[in-house]
């Protein structure tokens, strides 16, 4: 080594220094690389984690996609179904329109028929009225001639008897004609409602029945009587029938006593299920002290031609109370009868108060 030149030595030192420096640098690099390596390894790991997460998310998306496709397919089917149903509904609607038109037509036809029936009915009643009205005259002639014969001719006993029977039959025919007239009159006259004093009507009836009232020694009390919205002409007939009925079926042993009352009362206080509780009614009662009737007949007495006594005992056609009921019905009202045999009778009339 001694032989080495100074320059060489210097060069060596330099080289050495250089090497040492390079070494140092390399070591620094190695350390840096190590750090970078670790960093890369960490980043790698992170990326793998992300990749795994993405893979999971992907799978999820794929699944959702599939589900959505399934839903879309289902919706498409449902859509088709709705479209079909819609079409069906339109068809039904069209059918219903046709059916509706048909019903409307039938309805119209029925109304026409009903109107025809009503007019035919009216015609029939008018016919009944006119024919009974015109039957009165020849019948009266027959009766008058029979009575002239009975009075003036010298008849045998059997001849007299036969003419008397003829007279009786003609009398019954007269009753029937009178009642038929009254019955048809109820349906043929116009229904004109007017506020009327019931007292006036009762007084008129009293005047018409004055002979019978005298004969039966009857008193009619009608003190608490008000006004009512009624078809006056028909109501007069109603009162006439009820009062003459009370006189006819009076108890022969005591003077007849008829009490008539009227007042306006709420349906709820009238104890009758057929009345509406919130409506007001004009409640009219006609009460007598006559022979009455058994309770089981309380409905039947209002039917046409229904009688409780033979014609030999009480003359009558069985139309009178039917007329009464018809008149009450024309007033949209209700009538009831309550009685017991030999205990008088009471008629209750309920008419909606205007």
């Amino acid at each position, binding site marked *: 080594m001694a032989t080495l030149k100074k320059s060489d030595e210097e060069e060596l030192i330099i080289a050495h220094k250089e090497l040492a420096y390079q070494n140092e640098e390399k070591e620094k690099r190695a350390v840096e690389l190590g750090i970078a390596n670790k960093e890369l390894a960490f980043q790698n790991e992170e990326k793998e984690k992300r990749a795994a997460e993405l893979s999971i998310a992907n799978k999820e998306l794929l699944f959702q996609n599939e589900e959505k496709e399934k839903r879309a397919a289902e919706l498409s089917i449902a859509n088709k179904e709705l479209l079909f149903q819609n079409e069906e509904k339109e068809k039904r609607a069209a059918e219903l329109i046709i059916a509706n038109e048909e019903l409307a037509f039938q309805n119209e036809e029925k109304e026409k028929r009903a109107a025809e029936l009503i007019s035919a009915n009216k015609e029939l009643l008018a016919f009944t009225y006119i024919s009974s*009205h015109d039957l*009165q*005259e020849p*019948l*009266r*002639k027959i*009766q*008058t*001639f029979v*009575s*002239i014969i009975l*009075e003036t001719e010298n008849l045998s006993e059997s001849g007299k008897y036969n003419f008397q029977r003829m*007279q009786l039959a*003609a*009398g019954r025919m*007269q009753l029937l004609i009178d009642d038929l007239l009254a019955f048809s*009159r109820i349906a043929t006259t116009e229904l004109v409602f007017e506020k009327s004093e019931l007292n006036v009507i009762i*007084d*008129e009836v009293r*005047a*018409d029945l*004055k*002979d019978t009232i*005298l*004969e039966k020694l009857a008193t009619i009390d009608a003190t608490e009587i008000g006004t009512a919205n009624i078809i006056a*002409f028909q109501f*007069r*007939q109603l009162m006439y029938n009820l009062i003459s009925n009370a006189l006819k079926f009076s108890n022969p042993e005591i003077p007849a006593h008829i009490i008539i009352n009227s007042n306006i009362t709420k349906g709820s206080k009238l104890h009758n299920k057929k009345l509406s509780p919130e409506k007001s009614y004009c409640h009219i009662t006609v009460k007598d002290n006559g022979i009455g009737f058994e309770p089981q007949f309380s409905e039947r007495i209002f039917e046409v031609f229904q009688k409780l006594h033979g014609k030999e005992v009480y003359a009558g056609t069985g139309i009178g109370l039917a007329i009464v009921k018809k008149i009450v019905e024309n007033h949209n009202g209700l009538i009831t009868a309550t009685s017991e045999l030999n205990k008088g009778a009471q008629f209750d009339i309920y008419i909606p108060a205007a």
Partner: protein
Amino acid sequence: MHEMITLNILLADDDKDDRQFFSMALDGINIPTKLETVVDGEKLMDYLSENRQQLPDVIFLDLNMPRKNGFECLTEIKLNQQLNQLQVVIFSTSFEQEVVNLLYHNGATYYIRKPSGFLQFKKIINHTVSLITQENRSKKSREDFVITLQGS
């Protein structure tokens, strides 16, 4: 007993039988009467205008007559100043309350429904004729307008 004045009656009725019944009925009563008859409403109005000076005391008027009915006659009589004091008794087979009210309103004196037996026929004519001879001419109440027989 003082002498009774003869009551002049004019009957307007298209029915032959009813005119006969009426005349027979008058024969049986003890009030002196004189009866003239006409057979429809037109003849009645003619008679009244031809006999202005000797008008009847009372007219018995049927309602249902040809050419001119009883209503028309009553209205004409009551609207005529020379005739409206005449007493008019309506004498009809039918009995319609509305009609009776209208006739009362139109000024008829009485309403009689032709009865179905001759005895009643005589009674009611007798009763009416005596009412006509007795009464003053003041307006009757509605209650007395329709003449009926007691107990018939």
